[in-house]
């Protein structure tokens, strides 16, 4: 009985599959004829709930349809490379400058000479050859327990290696790209030797093994396991929103020196884009004053466009001097940073 049902279902499945394959998407770029709506295709490592509201608004404004898939950066990049000129993707959105730099390095992005983008996005937040543009900025800064730490005691990232912090520091794993970018920019400024000493000092001061997420780190801090850490601002914002009473606060380090480490999420146009003009128009819109506020606010980030003010909540964390080293350094030195952290036994 069962196998008979199974057989019928199987035949059904095969027929359906065959149908699904054959009637699959007529190439959108083909029909240039009557009233064709433009369709822009996006590969995104930024999550759906952070980009879809933007796309919906753009579609409502312009009538341009946007389709997308989301995945991690590594697989998306591998897919773009493998697809070559047959790729349907027009735009790649990813998080972290290191990943954007890799995309350029692999030759999957094209140069975009757009006066609008050049005007909207500051030089240190985009590729030197204009293959990608930062769209939002996050700071990776020090967070401390307001119950057990006097902010007067805090000064720099490097100072967290000092004696008073022994057994009081929590860190997220070195496998997360945000820490790799932080260390990479430190290598860029301080040199490899000095940076390794700093990282080893952090490891020596750890209260417990590194956690897998910034949120877990902050929860452990609130529970009393440790007193200081280094986190991305939006994780702090998210946690504060859930629990305003949380006894944690942000501190902006290195204000007398290079400034706070920042990173970007950003986008570029693919080399083999089928709709390059429409994709550039979308990118220009995303960098515009009209879109930047919302794009940043969705994830409690800072707009990349300096003409746009951050949301009230983000602004309430205070102003700071940001490290203006070009974020590309994060990509160039990422491998060196990973190796350095492995040598320092930062897990």
């Amino acid at each position, binding site marked *: 009985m*069962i*196998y008979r049902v*199974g057989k019928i*279902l*199987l035949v059904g*499945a095969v027929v*359906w*599959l065959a149908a*699904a*394959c054959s009637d*699959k998407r007529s*190439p959108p770029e083909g029909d240039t004829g009557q009233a064709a709506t433009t369709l822009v*295709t996006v590969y995104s490592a930024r*999550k*759906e*709930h952070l980009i879809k509201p933007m796309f919906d608004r753009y579609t409502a404004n312009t009538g341009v349809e946007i*389709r*997308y*898939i*989301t*995945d*991690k*950066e*590594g*697989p*998306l*990049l*591998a*897919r773009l490379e*493998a*697809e*070559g*000129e*047959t*790729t*349907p993707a027009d735009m790649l959105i990813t998080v972290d400058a290191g990943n954007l730099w890799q995309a350029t390095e692999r030759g999957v992005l094209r140069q975009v000479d757009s006066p609008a983008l050049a005007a909207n996005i500051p030089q240190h937040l985009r590729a030197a050859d204009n293959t990608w543009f930062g769209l939002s900025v996050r700071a990776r800064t020090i967070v401390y327990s307001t119950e057990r730490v006097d902010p007067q005691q805090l000064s720099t990232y490097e100072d967290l290696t000092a004696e008073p912090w022994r057994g009081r520091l929590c860190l997220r*794993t070195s*496998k997360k*790209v945000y820490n*790799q970018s932080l260390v990479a920019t430190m290598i860029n400024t301080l040199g490899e030797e000095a940076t390794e000493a700093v990282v080893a000092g952090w490891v020596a001061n750890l209260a417990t*093994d590194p*956690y*897998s997420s*910034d*949120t*877990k780190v902050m*929860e*452990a801090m*609130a*529970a*009393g*396991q440790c007193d200081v850490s280094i986190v991305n601002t939006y*994780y702090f914002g998210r946690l504060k929103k859930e629990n305003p009473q949380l006894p944690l606060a942000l501190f902006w380090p290195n204000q007398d020196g290079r400034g706070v480490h920042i990173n970007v999420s950003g986008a570029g146009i693919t080399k083999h884009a089928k709709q390059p003009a429409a994709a550039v128009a979308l990118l220009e819109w995303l960098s515009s004053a009209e879109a930047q506020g919302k794009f940043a606010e969705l994830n409690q980030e800072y707009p990349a466009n300096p003409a746009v003010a951050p949301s009230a909540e983000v602004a309430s964390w205070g102003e700071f001097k940001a490290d203006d080293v070009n974020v590309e350094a994060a990509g160039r030195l*990422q*491998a060196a940073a*990973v*190796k350095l952290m*492995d*040598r320092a036994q930062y*897990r």
Partner: protein
Amino acid sequence: MTDTALKRPALPAAALAPPPNGRLWRLPAWLMAGLVLLPVSVIVLSWGSAQTEVWQHLIATQLSRLLGNTLILVLGVGVWVMVLGVSLAWFTATCEFPGRRWLDWALMLPLAIPTYVVAFVALGLLGYSGPVQTLWRHWFGADAWFPDIRGAGGVVMVMTTVLYPYVYMLARAAFLAQGRGLMDASRLLGNGPWSSFLRVALPMARPAIVAGTALALMECLADFGAVSVLNYDTFTTAIYKSWFGFFNLQAAAQLASLLLLFVFAALYAEQRARGSGRIHQQPRRTRTAYQLTGWRGLLVSAYCTSVVVLAFVVPVLQLLVWVFETRATGLDSRYGALILRTFTLGGSAALITVAIAVLVAYGQRVSGRLGISTSVRLAGLGYALPGSVLAVGILLAFAYIDRQLINPLRLLLELPPAQILVGSVAALVLAYVIRFFSVAVGPVQAGLERIKPHFQEAAHTLGAGQWRVLRRIYLPLLAPGLLTALLLVLVDTMKEMPATLLLRPFGWDTLAVRVFELTSEGEWQRAALPALTLVLLSIPPVVIMVRRSRAV
């Protein structure tokens, strides 16, 4: 059609000689092996270029620690899934005790919860900031010692709670099929209940137990989700570090191929150790259960219940709390479509994979081979690779076919180059088949090994062809194994993440994709809704499967 086959005069000689078309029946196994070898060869080809820099770095800084961690994990999980899986299967399949009817299916449910979800729930409950430790410190002081859930013990516990159902399901099907005949014979010959269990029931169920344990261990070796939530470094950590840290996909593929080699060798060694002895089941339909009454019954009942509570009820309650806390954010109009697609993909993958598994396993038997041949072993390798690595291997292979085969054809027809395979539903289902073939073939083969070859010989003597034998004799006898295979593939496909992410057509988001979107930036509370839906979706198939396997 089949009537003519019956009317044909039967030649006794034909039954004893190798069955007709014996060689042809080896074809399914080799076709399947070829399909799996497409992505695997992409990965093995990575050895074409030396990646000495990455290798030197890994060996110098961490490889020995990673291998040690992996060994502890595999040993711990291996022992625990066998202990839990076999004992629970024995109780529910052969005994009668209070609550057995619902425990029978409830014990399978942990399978439906993705490993990384259990890991996160465990970290949330048992971590430093979790309720258990907070209470602990409240009672015993701020410095009271508590084991860190992120250590080896915690990881083994998390993996075991999710993976024991593989052993449980397969062993249960085996024990159900055994009936009580041989056990009673052993008891009559003077063996005690324990020695009868160890010397009769257990060896008979060995293929099933081994198949289940192998699945659990392969999943554990290839896992990246749970170990990264708990920040426990294993061999896969090195693979992902090479890929995402050094952006060196080739070094990652080289490491992954070593993992493959290890699994292949381990499976081969087990096969050799098992020897060629075969025990075939008694086709007994009547089963009398061992009645466990009084404190024995209650004890067994408490044991089974506590496993269900720890491995299923607690994680699900935590998910429910999160759904409630986030007020089910994300429950929008697209949710129905999300569920439908998840189920469609899972269902088609399950049916196709199991159908192929039956053909392959049956083909093996008909072509006169005992045990598992090289082709089947090759075909099962898809499960031993970390999901993302296999997904990329499949993508590269499909992209190559698109480029080298399909597009030249399209050029001939004067069509513009386009992607046909990559990003199609067919390719995605094919990817599931490649990944989960060994999940399906394990239960099918374990079931097949218990069926006496006499049936087949008798049927051939009566003039029935291979197809007819397969349909009329094997499939009904195999039903418990088949249902197990269908369910395993269905549930595994529904929670599969890397291949779905990379190969899905535009708009084909599933529940697992939604879970990924939310968890990858740490929004676990919001991910509770799709995760819980995924779990709920798996319950009806589990219940149906258990009912059916009893009825047959």
